[in-house]
């Protein structure tokens, strides 16, 4: 295992210390239980946004805490949902009297832990709205599974709902907008390599030098299908077809295209991917009016990428464009 770390069990804590040292103007870090809040939390009268999940997806979620996005993030151990007491303490720390939205990626662990936290927070008199992200088209939706995973759309939801909350919209409205983002967003991912959970010490899966995994999640889980490596235009086509035909996105639609690196993929390749995504959508008459290109929701050092498309309307576009000031996303300010 080759990692820039000290001891595997200290990675999450030390990375948090790094964030605390790096961005005191933007975030405050609380340990034991671990969570981050924006520097000016709680913001009175504003619906607060709390997200969280396993670590190893950086900058998500800690890098998205700040003005115009999240009020708090709860980092779990690597690839392990945080615990209810982290979520509860974070919820209490950011509640400005207008209630709290929990943004929950649809994984059994995340859902159950957030459920317990929401119950406890309600028990303490805090209004909580839970919003689920389940945008991964690689998972065949079915009543008989845990449902689709929450992946790339999470980032877009946190930005857009964060902007709505910043405008002082009411809790229910912020939650509604977040759900609207979820219903308009679809993603799919792939991997060239596996990743290594620090405490596990070896790659989660083995993969040949000429193979790739299609339909991967963000936890080094194997995907739906393994196949021979292909030129990227074929890979993009395969993934983009699955994404666009799911809603489906139609001729004339405007979308935000999010090309996301998995952590070990360099930017030059993401631009090559974006070029293919752009050509593919042009071919279908779908217009990219906003984009995001970079490694924002990652799986440790995994090489690979995901494509997320979000169907835009005027309101979503306006909220996307609104100022944001976090460690990882910043514009307009």
């Amino acid at each position: 295992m080759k990692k820039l770390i000290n001891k595997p069990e200290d990675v999450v804590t030390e990375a948090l210390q790094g964030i605390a040292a790096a961005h005191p103007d933007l975030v405050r870090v609380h340990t034991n239980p671990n969570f981050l809040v924006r520097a000016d939390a709680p913001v009175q009268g504003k619906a607060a946004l709390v997200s969280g999940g396993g670590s190893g997806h950086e900058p998500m979620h800690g890098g998205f805490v700040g003005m115009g996005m999240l009020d708090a993030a709860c980092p779990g151990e690597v690839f392990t949902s945080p615990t209810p007491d982290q979520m509860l303490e974070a919820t209490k720390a950011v509640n400005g009297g207008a209630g709290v939205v929990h943004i929950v990626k649809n994984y059994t662990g995340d859902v159950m832990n957030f459920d317990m936290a929401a119950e406890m927070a309600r028990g303490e008199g805090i209004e909580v709205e839970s919003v689920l992200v389940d945008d991964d088209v690689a998972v065949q939706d079915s009543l008989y599974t845990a449902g689709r995973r929450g992946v790339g759309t999470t980032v877009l939801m946190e930005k857009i709902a964060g902007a709505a909350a910043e405008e002082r919209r009411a809790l229910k409205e912020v939650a509604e907008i977040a759900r609207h983002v979820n219903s308009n967003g679809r993603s799919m991912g792939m991997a060239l390599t596996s990743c290594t959970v620090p405490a596990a010490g070896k790659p989660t899966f083995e993969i040949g030098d000429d193979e790739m995994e299609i339909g991967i999640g963000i936890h080094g889980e194997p995907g739906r299908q393994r196949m021979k490596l292909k030129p990227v235009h074929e890979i993009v086509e395969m993934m983009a077809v699955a994404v666009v035909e799911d809603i489906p996105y139609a001729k004339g639609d405007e979308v935000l295209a999010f090309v996301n690196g998995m952590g070990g993929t360099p930017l030059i390749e993401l631009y090559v991917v974006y070029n293919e995504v752009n050509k593919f959508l042009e071919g279908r008459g779908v217009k990219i009016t906003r984009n995001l290109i970079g490694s924002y929701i990652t799986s440790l050092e995994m090489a690979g990428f995901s494509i997320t498309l979000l169907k835009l309307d005027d309101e979503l576009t306006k909220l996307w464009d609104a100022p944001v000031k976090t460690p990882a996303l910043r514009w307009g300010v």
Partner: protein
Amino acid sequence: MSVPYDQVVQFVRTFAKVVSENREYLTDLDSAIGDADHGINMDRGMSAALAKLDGVPEGDVGNLFKTVGMTLVSTVGGAGGPLYGTLFIQMGMAVAGKPELSSQDWAEALTKGLEGLVMRGKAEPGDKTMVDALTPARDALKEALEEGASFGDALRRSAAAAEEGMKGTIPLVARKGRASYLGERSAGHQDPGATSTYLLLKTAADTWADGDP
């Protein structure tokens, strides 16, 4: 025969040790169809529970289980945390105030624990989860006791049923938890959670059945 309080403590200690010894094994199982953390998670949780044991006032088995459960909830995370946490908390509720554990108490604890687990996780038998080890283990224990078996014997039959349930997860296609994302590819692998649940039941048998052949 009833299990005295300190033997219940011993059961918790041994389970922590067993989990620690099987940390890599459980994690490897989770690599194949999950995210390579089940052993790490359970070990972190049981180590934390172990550290709490000395502070628990003696003599109330229910309180002991609840403390373990709450510690798991607040230290494990993932699916394992709420599930094992709920299991132990519900077991604790079932035997609240008891200074020792009778065979009927244990049967009741497993029943309430399983109910809590199912309420939390909504898994049914055959979904390739912990439930596939716990359900037959609980059933076997009850059946043995109804047939008049000794507590020791009932514990051994319960552990054997858990083992069979665990192995039975191998051919299954997962319908709950992370492994369900794999669809058909989840078949052919043993479920990590069912495996740790078998270890729990085996630890109970190993710790308590000895003096009661």
